């Protein structure tokens, strides 16, 4: 029994939320639909932990879907790279589901709650499928499952604020164009090589170095995924979608959605096209690197001038995505590892910040803007204490997780002769203190009227867990750092 489970883990991780979403929609009761969602996200998390242990033994699991042997059949690949986003997605979605219990009925009509949970699980299943699959076209299907589900989730915010509809619409249109561009790229590569399996694709394009169709296909694929990952000029959909989505959905999307796409970017750059070195090096140097630098500064500056806190955090997400792509762009083993470290740390930081902000919204019963926060720090000590810790982590102060990722990022950029890169990273992190301090100052140092009664434990439990993680991975980062270096090792091997 256990044997069968272990053997089929790669597909079970995806199927668990996918199948459960069908049952959740049938349960009209708010509590039971939530309980089933929590159960299935917990099981998914458990399975991904099991998978993590399996990976430590085998280091590479290839699962042939329906026993159709790859490269003909669809292959699911779990290796030391894929396990990082799997753990992030399943872990954060479990925490976000716990958090959703009190928040969800507040913002969504009672009768549609079970449908929302069903979409919630579908989005998680799509994201998990995105990172497990080893088939380029299957990836597109999961991309669309996750993004259609998240669009519908964002649109559920319309009960609270009608702007959610426009946000969801923009997300849908821009996301669909991105996905279609990706499909064009896959089509060109398929026409060129006759295979869709990623590993097989790598081998078959090895000696097609300057083929024009190959370059075009690569361009379409990478741009399509960059839209989904909200890399700088293609991030327009992100701030609105995060700001107007129901609070729990913002937490889920902000912490997980872009991570999966960032992993796909790493996979395309360093795994599928690893043999076209010229192409990749030019892309990294002339496209990804400048865009990441722009993202770091544009995101931070937009965040400084923003007054709506959820939007502010979304703009800061754009900047943080910039750090991750910058790490990929430097292209050495150490920097790619730094990218994965930051991917993990940013998930727990942004998750924590969004949970804190949305629970404030739950108490004050209005949109969380900078003016509405005055003096709340003294009334909601637990929430704000966690918020401050997560902010410090975002700014990269020592003893927090954010410090570890900045440390490795700066170390990696210095060791690849990029001292000016290190300086730019430092300037941008210093700027991020500006908008975080703005919030903290208003919360603690201004007088405000009394609104809040008592903090609710079901809401702050996940906040405390995630803040604890922020501190824990700041003190002992060996788990994340080792995992990320293994991942980088696996991605670019002994090349550099």
């Amino acid at each position, binding site marked *: 029994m256990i044997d069968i489970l272990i053997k089929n883990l790669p597909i079970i991780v995806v199927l668990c939320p996918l199948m459960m979403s069908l049952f959740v929609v049938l349960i009209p009761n708010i509590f039971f639909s939530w309980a089933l969602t929590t159960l299935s996200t917990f099981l998914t998390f458990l399975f991904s932990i099991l998978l993590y242990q399996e990976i430590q033994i085998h280091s590479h699991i290839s699962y042939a879907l329906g026993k159709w042997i790859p490269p003909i059949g669809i292959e699911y690949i779990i290796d030391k790279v894929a396990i990082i986003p799997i753990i992030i997605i399943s872990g954060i979605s479990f925490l976000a589901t716990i958090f959703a219990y009190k928040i969800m009925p507040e913002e969504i009509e009672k009768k549609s709650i079970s449908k929302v949970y069903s979409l919630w699980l579908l989005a998680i299943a799509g994201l998990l499928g995105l990172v497990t699959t080893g088939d380029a*076209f299957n990836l*597109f*299907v999961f991309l*669309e499952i996750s993004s*259609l589900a998240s*669009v*519908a989730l964002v*649109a559920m915010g*319309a*009960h*609270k*604020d*009608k*702007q959610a*509809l*426009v946000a*969801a*619409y923009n997300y*849908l*249109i821009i996301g*669909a*164009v991105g*996905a*279609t561009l990706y*499909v*064009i790229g896959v*089509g060109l590569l*398929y*026409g060129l090589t*006759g295979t*869709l399996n990623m590993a097989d694709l790598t081998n078959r394009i090895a000696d097609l170095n300057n083929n024009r169709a190959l370059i075009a296909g690569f361009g379409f694929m990478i741009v399509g995924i960059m839209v989904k990952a909200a890399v700088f000029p293609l991030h327009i959909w992100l701030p609105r979608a995060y700001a107007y989505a129901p609070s729990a959905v913002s937490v889920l999307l902000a912490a997980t959605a872009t991570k999966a796409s960032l992993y796909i970017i790493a996979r395309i750059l360093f795994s599928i096209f690893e043999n076209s070195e010229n192409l990749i090096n030019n892309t990294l140097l002339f496209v990804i690197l400048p865009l990441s630098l722009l993202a770091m500064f544009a995101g931070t500056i937009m965040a400084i001038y923003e*007054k*709506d806190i959820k939007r502010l955090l979304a703009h800061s997400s754009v900047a943080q995505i910039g750090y991750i792509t910058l790490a990929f762009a430097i292209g050495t083993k150490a920097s790619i590892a730094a990218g994965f470290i930051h991917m993990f740390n940013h998930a727990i930081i942004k998750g924590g910040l969004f949970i804190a902000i949305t629970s404030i919204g739950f108490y004050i*019963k*209005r*949109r969380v*803007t900078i*003016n*509405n926060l005055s003096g709340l720090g003294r009334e909601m000590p637990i929430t704000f204490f966690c918020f401050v810790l997560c902010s410090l982590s975002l700014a990269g102060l020592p003893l927090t997780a954010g410090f570890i990722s900045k440390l490795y990022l700066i170390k990696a950029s210095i060791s690849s002769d990029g001292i000016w890169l290190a300086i730019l990273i430092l300037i941008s992190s210093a700027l991020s203190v500006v908008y975080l301090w703005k919030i903290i100052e208003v919360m603690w140092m201004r007088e405000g009227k009394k609104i809040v009664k008592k903090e609710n434990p079901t809401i702050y439990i996940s906040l405390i867990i995630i803040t604890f993680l922020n501190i824990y991975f700041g003190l002992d980062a060996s788990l994340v750092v080792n995992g990320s270096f293994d991942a980088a090792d696996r991605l670019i091997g002994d090349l550099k």
Partner: protein
Amino acid sequence: MISSTIGIWNYWIVFCLMMIGLFLVIGRKNFLKKIVGLAIFQTSVFLLYITFGKIKGGTPPILNESIDTIYSNPLPHVLILTAIVVGVATTALGLSLVLRINSEYGSIEEDDVSAQDLVDYHDDIETGKNFDLKFKK
């Protein structure tokens, strides 16, 4: 020159449809027209795949007695079947969103909608007068 241009006329059609679709998505201010553009854009990709699968003189991939039969590749058709389903889902979701936008805003023109949004946004930030009304209907 001419023969090679006509020889790949399928690709020319794909290319034209793709550009028409993309232009509609980017250039039009009407939410409904954008959805139509998106559908055209996706359809062009379907045609692209189908064209890849066809080989000159190829037959459907049904096992044949004679040895020198040329088969067309059936896989792109299967892929496109999946992509069509995805495209239909995207269009349906988009249309339902347009419907909701129309009932909430009374318009599906981007300019009208964003003008209303802008007013709301500034009210929210500066005075906070819309909050309590909007949060719980």
